[in-house]
C-alpha cells in the first residue's frame, strides 16, 4: 500500500514536472474528479460526504461538482470538460444524458482515465464500473413490506415521479412485478405520475383515494411523491398504509408520527464511498466489479434511530 502510493506520487510528480512543481505535494494522492447530477440537494451532499470519507480513509484527493438543476445538461458537460483538463487519475460521473457526454467520455478513454459511473449510470461501455442502487430490488422490498402491512390482500396504488427516468421506471416495475409474482391477492388499482412535485402528487393522491374508497395502501416512489401521498391522505382524513422512498425531514417526521409506515432509503453515502473506492482500484489496475450495488435499507419507527440507518438518512 505504502509503496504503491509512493509510486503513484512519483508518477504524478513526473507528469506535472513543468508548471506543477509547487503543486507536487497535493499530487501525492491520486486525484479523482466526481461530476454529479446536482450538488445542493441533501441527497447529493450525502454522496459527497461518502466520497470525502473514502478519500480520507483510502488516500485520494476528490472534488465534487454538479449543475444547479437536472435539466442543465450542457453545464454538466462543461464541468466534465474542466475536469478532464485537470488530468485526473480517474473520473466519477453520474450522467444527466449519456449520449450528450459520449464525446468527452471517449476523450477520457483515449487519455486512459478510468471512468466510474455512479447513481444512474452511463449508457455506454466506457465506464469500467457503475456504483448505483439496485432500484428494482429496493422497490420489490417495498412491495413485500406493503404486503405484510396490509395483511396480504386488498387494493393498493402507486404514485411515481415520472415514467421516463430510469429510477421512475425501475421503482415502478420493481414494485409492480413483485406484487404480481408473490402477492396474488393484492391488486394494483392505479399507477400515476406526479413529477416528484409535492403539490401535484397531493392532488393526484386525493383523486386516487376518492376513486377507491377501499384502498388499503399507497407507495410513493421518491421523496416528493411520498410526501404528496402523506399530504393527500391527511387532507382527506383517511387511514391507509403508506410506504415511501428516500428520506428528508418531512418523511422522517411522518414515520415517527405513524402517518407513514416506513420507507426505502438508498445509501447515498455508500454511493459516494464505493465510487471513490472503485476509482482507486481502477487507477491501481486492480479488478473492479462491473456493477457495484451500493445497498438500500427499509426503515420504520423501530429502526429509524439506529446508527447504520441514521447515517444514510438526510433532512
Amino acid at each position: 500500500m505504502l509503496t504503491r502510493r509512493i509510486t503513484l506520487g512519483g508518477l504524478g510528480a513526473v507528469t506535472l514536472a513543468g508548471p506543477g512543481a509547487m503543486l507536487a505535494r497535493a499530487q501525492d494522492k491520486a486525484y479523482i474528479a466526481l461530476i454529479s447530477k446536482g450538488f445542493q440537494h441533501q441527497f447529493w451532499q450525502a454522496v459527497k460526504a461518502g466520497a470525502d470519507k473514502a478519500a480520507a480513509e483510502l488516500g485520494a484527493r476528490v472534488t465534487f461538482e454538479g449543475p444547479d438543476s437536472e435539466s442543465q445538461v450542457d453545464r454538466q458537460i462543461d464541468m466534465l470538460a474542466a475536469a478532464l483538463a485537470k488530468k485526473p487519475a480517474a473520473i466519477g460521473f453520474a450522467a444527466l444524458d449519456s449520449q450528450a457526454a459520449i464525446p468527452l467520455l471517449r476523450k477520457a478513454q483515449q487519455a486512459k482515465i478510468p471512468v466510474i459511473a455512479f447513481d444512474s449510470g452511463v449508457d455506454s461501455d466506457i465506464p469500467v464500473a457503475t456504483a448505483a442502487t439496485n432500484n428494482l430490488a429496493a422497490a420489490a422490498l417495498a412491495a413485500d413490506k406493503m404486503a405484510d402491512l396490509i395483511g396480504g390482500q386488498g387494493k393498493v396504488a402507486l404514485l411515481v415521479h415520472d415514467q421516463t427516468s430510469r429510477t421512475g421506471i425501475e421503482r415502478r416495475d420493481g414494485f409492480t412485478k413483485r406484487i404480481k409474482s408473490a402477492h396474488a391477492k393484492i391488486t394494483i388499482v392505479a399507477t400515476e405520475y406526479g413529477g416528484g412535485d409535492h403539490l401535484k402528487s397531493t392532488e393526484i393522491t386525493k383523486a386516487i383515494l376518492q376513486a377507491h374508497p377501499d384502498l388499503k395502501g399507497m407507495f410513493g416512489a421518491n421523496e416528493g411523491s411520498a410526501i404528496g401521498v402523506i399530504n393527500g391522505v391527511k387532507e382527506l382524513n383517511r387511514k391507509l398504509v403508506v410506504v415511501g422512498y428516500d428520506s428528508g425531514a418531512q418523511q422522517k417526521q411522518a414515520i415517527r408520527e405513524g402517518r407513514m409506515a416506513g420507507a426505502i432509503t438508498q445509501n447515498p453515502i455508500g454511493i459516494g464511498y464505493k465510487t471513490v473506492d472503485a476509482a482507486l482500484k481502477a487507477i491501481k489496475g486492480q479488478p473492479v466489479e462491473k456493477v457495484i450495488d451500493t445497498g438500500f435499507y427499509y426503515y420504520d419507527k423501530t429502526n429509524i434511530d439506529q446508527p447504520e440507518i441514521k447515517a444514510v438518512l438526510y433532512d
Partner: protein
Amino acid sequence: MSVATSKPSLLPGMRLSGARHRLLAFTSLVALIVIFSLTAPDFLSTANVIAILQSTSVNGVLAIAATLVIITGGIDLSVGTLMTFCAVIAGVVLTYWGLPLGAGVLAAIAAGAVVGLTSGTCVAKLKIPPFIATLGMMLVLKGLALVISGTRPIYFNDTPDFAEIAQGSLIGMVLPDVPIPNGVLILFLVALVASFILQRTILGRFTFALGSNEEAVRLSGVNTDRWKMAVYALAGGICGIAGLLIASRLNSAQPALGQGYELDAIAAVVIGGTSLSGGRGTIIGTLIGALIMSVLAFGLRLLSVPQEWQFVVTGAIIILAVYIDILRRGRS
C-alpha cells in the same frame, strides 16, 4: 431629420466612453487569464482553452442577441427558452420528419426570427413593457418546447452531420494541434455580422437611436415600431443559431433546459459595458463579457474552488462591472 443631426453628437461620446470601458473589460479578462494561468497549472492547456471557448459559444451568441435588444432600451428575457425552442424545432424537422440538414438549420433560425418578431410586436404595437412581454414569452416557449418534444430529449442520431455544426473542427483539419470547434467560429462569425449591422447599417443606427431617445426618433417621422420589431426579429434569429449550437453540442434537443440562461447572457452584456438603459453598447464588449464569465467558471473549477463559492465570486464580479458602468456614466 433629427436623427441625422443628433448622430454626430451622440455617437462619438458613446464611442469614447465605450472604448474606455471595453479597454477595462479587456484588461479584466487579461488579468483573470494571467492570475489563473499562474495558479492553475492546466489553465493554458489546449484542452482547457478549447473547453472555455466551446463553453462560451452558446452564451456568447445568446448575449449578442440580448445586446441588440438592450441597446434599444429593451430587454429580452426569452433568449434562453427561445434557444431551447429552436433546438426542439430543429429536432422535429431533422429527426421526426427526416428532412435534410439544411432544412433543420433554416427552420431553427426562422422559428427564432418569427418568435422574435412576435415579441417585438407585443412590445412595439401592443405597448407591453419589454420585461413583461419577454417574461411571458419565456414561459410560453418553455412550455411549447416541452409540449412539442413530449418532454423527452430529441436525439440527432439519424443526422450525424448535425453534431459537426458545433463539435467538428474545420481549423483542426488544417492545424491538427489546435482543434478549435466550429461552434467557436460560428460565435465569431455571428459577432462580426452583428457588429457590422450595428456600426454600418441603417438598422444599427436606429437600434442606437431607439435606445437614446425613441420619442425624438418617432417625432422625426421614423416608423419606430417597424425598426423595433426588426431588432427583436434579428435577435430571435440569432437565438435560433444558439439553439443549433447547443443542440449540436449535446447531439440532442434538451427541452427542459434554457430557463436561467437569459441571466448569464444579460450578465455578459453588462460586464461588456452595454448600458441597461439603452443607447450604448458594443458586440466586442459583449464577447469579452461572455469570455470573462467562462474564464471565471473554468478557472475557479480548475482551482477546485468549492461550487458554493464560485457563485459568490461570479456574482461579485457582475456587481463590480455594473458599478464601474455607473462610474463611467457619472463621468461622461
